[in-house]
């Protein structure tokens, strides 16, 4: 809009002013739409269950979300490194996470981990999500478990 400061004001008829305003509005909206669409293409993170992950052959290093149940008896800690297995009843993936897991991270409960596959086929989590509610199971996890007939709410709810 700074250009207009140099133009003679007299020449600005009502119609031209309105066109200029609409032009700027349209330009910003178009740019914003382009921005949103590009960002949607590049920045979204796909959600996979362990079975999906094996079927789809996701490239190592690509940012994804992995959701499933933490398999009983697989959670091991040494210092700040956590190793656990995520399962959906069909397939299993070994996951690794460095840091402090959420309070409600439990074996046998639902988990969603953000991260990427490693070349060796294991999953390196950069972030582990768990809701602050003991009865929570992520919707995506519940859906994929339901598909596999592994959905047993009475087991996943409560402690």
């Amino acid at each position, binding site marked *: 809009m700074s250009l*207009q400061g140099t133009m003679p004001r007299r020449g*600005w008829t*009502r119609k031209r002013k309105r066109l200029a305003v609409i032009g*700027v509005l349209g330009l910003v909206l178009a740019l*914003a739409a382009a921005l949103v669409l590009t960002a949607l293409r590049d920045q979204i993170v796909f959600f996979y269950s362990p079975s999906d992950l094996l079927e789809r052959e996701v490239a190592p290093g690509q940012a994804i979300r992995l959701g499933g149940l933490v398999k009983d008896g697989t959670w091991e800690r040494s210092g700040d490194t956590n190793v656990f297995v995520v399962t959906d009843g069909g397939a299993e993936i070994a996951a690794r996470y460095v840091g402090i897991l959420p309070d*409600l991270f439990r074996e046998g409960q639902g988990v969603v981990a953000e991260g990427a596959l490693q070349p060796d086929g294991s999953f390196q989590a950069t972030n582990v999500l768990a809701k602050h509610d003991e009865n929570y199971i992520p919707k*995506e996890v519940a859906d994929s478990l339901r598909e596999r007939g592994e959905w047993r709410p009475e087991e996943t709810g409560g402690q």
Partner: protein
Amino acid sequence: MSIELGHFALILALAIATVSAVGGLALWRRGPRVAQFLQQSAILQFVLVACAFAALVRAFAQSDFSLALAVNHSHSLKPMIFKISGVWGNHEGSMVLWILILVLFGAMVAAFGRNLPRPLLSLVLATQSLLTAAFTAFTVFTSNPFERVFPPPFEGNDLNPVLQDIGLAIHPPLLYAGYVGFSVCFSFAVAALISGRIDAAWARWVRPWTMLSWLFLTLGIAMGSYWAYYELGWGGWWFWDPVENASFMPWLAGTALLHSAIVMEKRGALKIWTIFLAIITFSLSLLGTFLVRSGILTSVHTFASDPTRGLVILSILAVLIGGAFALFALRAPKLRAGGLFAPVSREGALILNNLFLSTAVGAVLVGTLYPLVLDALTGTTISVGEPFFNLTFSILMAPLLLVLPFGPLLAWKRADIVAAAQRLVAAGALAIFLAILISALGGLSISLAPLGLLLGFWVAFGAIMDIIDRGRFGKLPPRESLRRIIKLPRSTFATALGHFGVGITVLGIVSTTAWESEVVTTLNPGETTAIADYAIAFDDFNEVAGPNYSAERGIFTVTDHNGGERTLAAERRFYEASGTPTTEAAIATYGFSQLYLQLGEPQADTHVLRIWYKPYITLIWLGAILMAVAGVVSLTDRRKRVGAPAQSKARRATEAA
């Protein structure tokens, strides 16, 4: 007994609201008697809902476990404050709080709106009653908080432990006051569309309500962000989670409304757009309250959700929002456009503000709903996370922040951009200097940090320059300049302070994002570690008992670079009643920066410790508080006080007579 009285009061409020809504919308032309009835009805609705709410509070405070709601969400060992906050820590109770605030705003319109034209007042109160009736009916019929259980159990199931926190005791009331306050703007918009009376006076009446709601929403979001930061123990202050987006969208739209209403009041322009924004803002508030709660969108930190009633609430929203937009489509074309202005003018700047803010609303809305749409259409499950929002939102905000300082310096109708730029040279130079200096000293961790700092300083200094410029410092003797500044209207200070707050928040966001450091380590009592300029010694580890929990507590001593020492305690609590563990982070504030310690689960005699150093993070919330204070200052401006213009007109009339 009081439970039944409360239940009855709520049903009575529903009946009265229904009568007011139907009667008011049918008879609003009939003059002052109708308005008087609606005023009294609005106040009565408030009294009745307040009784209903008080009955719930009483039952929770006395741990009356014959009330189903108290059984599910309370516990006799809880501290009193959390017993009371437990009332709104669940779906049913929070609905009653929501309605209470709705009728409170209705009663306030009735009390302060004595100078409004009668037909407009009638229509506003009738619309407000319609909203009350809809949501009270929803509560009474599908989410009754007054249900009893028999036989009453001895003990309750406890409130979710992370909700047992002072921050969350006050966060929902603040947030709701913001959300629901916009209902007044909505009602005014609907009233204006029905009556066809839309002029500058309308904008003057709406502005204080917008400002009031906006400042509550600002505080509510800031409070929620700070709560999530210290209570959830993730060390983050904003996650672009659907719940947060849901509160952020009405805030963005409300901010736009605040600015477009100025144009409408001062210049009579942007009428249709302002009405549209008023409807949109409240619609987004409704979405904010209910979209996540309906279970359609999942969020990692929503509470009080109840998917079973989701469809009912979404149908109510569809009818209310759809109705308002249908009315808008029907009536808006008949409104006459007013106020001509050149592109470079105060109006033009405010339009740019609205353009970027509403585009940002659109981007956030797309990001929030896209996973839902994609899942419905293709069955692919995706998540749109922080990278999307950070990218789109910051790119949209950058130009807004860049032009922001120009706005207050431009004249109405037609302005000289060169003159405005000249007046901002000092602010720009200082901002560039500081951004370069800090980036050089702090080390560049991300390439965009200097740019962000530059924008933050630019907005903050630009706000100060606005005041200095109005005092004509340097052109007049300092004493004369000071006198001029003191005499400036309060709204000018409010503008400057609000914009200064925006700058401060930006600075906090940029510095904590760019220069945050984090250490994850294993430590035993007696050992030490270090982060930034601070040495942290793990002194002791012991077990303690709280009123309704047991905890493992780590005691730490932090030594800063000047040798000053502070003792901190980080805890892992275990709440027996619900069997839930929580993490209580230890936070030490140094100036505007914070040190954040999180204790992990103990294992084989060693402890995992996660420590963050967050430089200038408190500026984020401080800026939000400044914005809210600016709102208060603006509300105390005599010229904008509710009903004041009509009052002075009335006085002039009596003086003339």
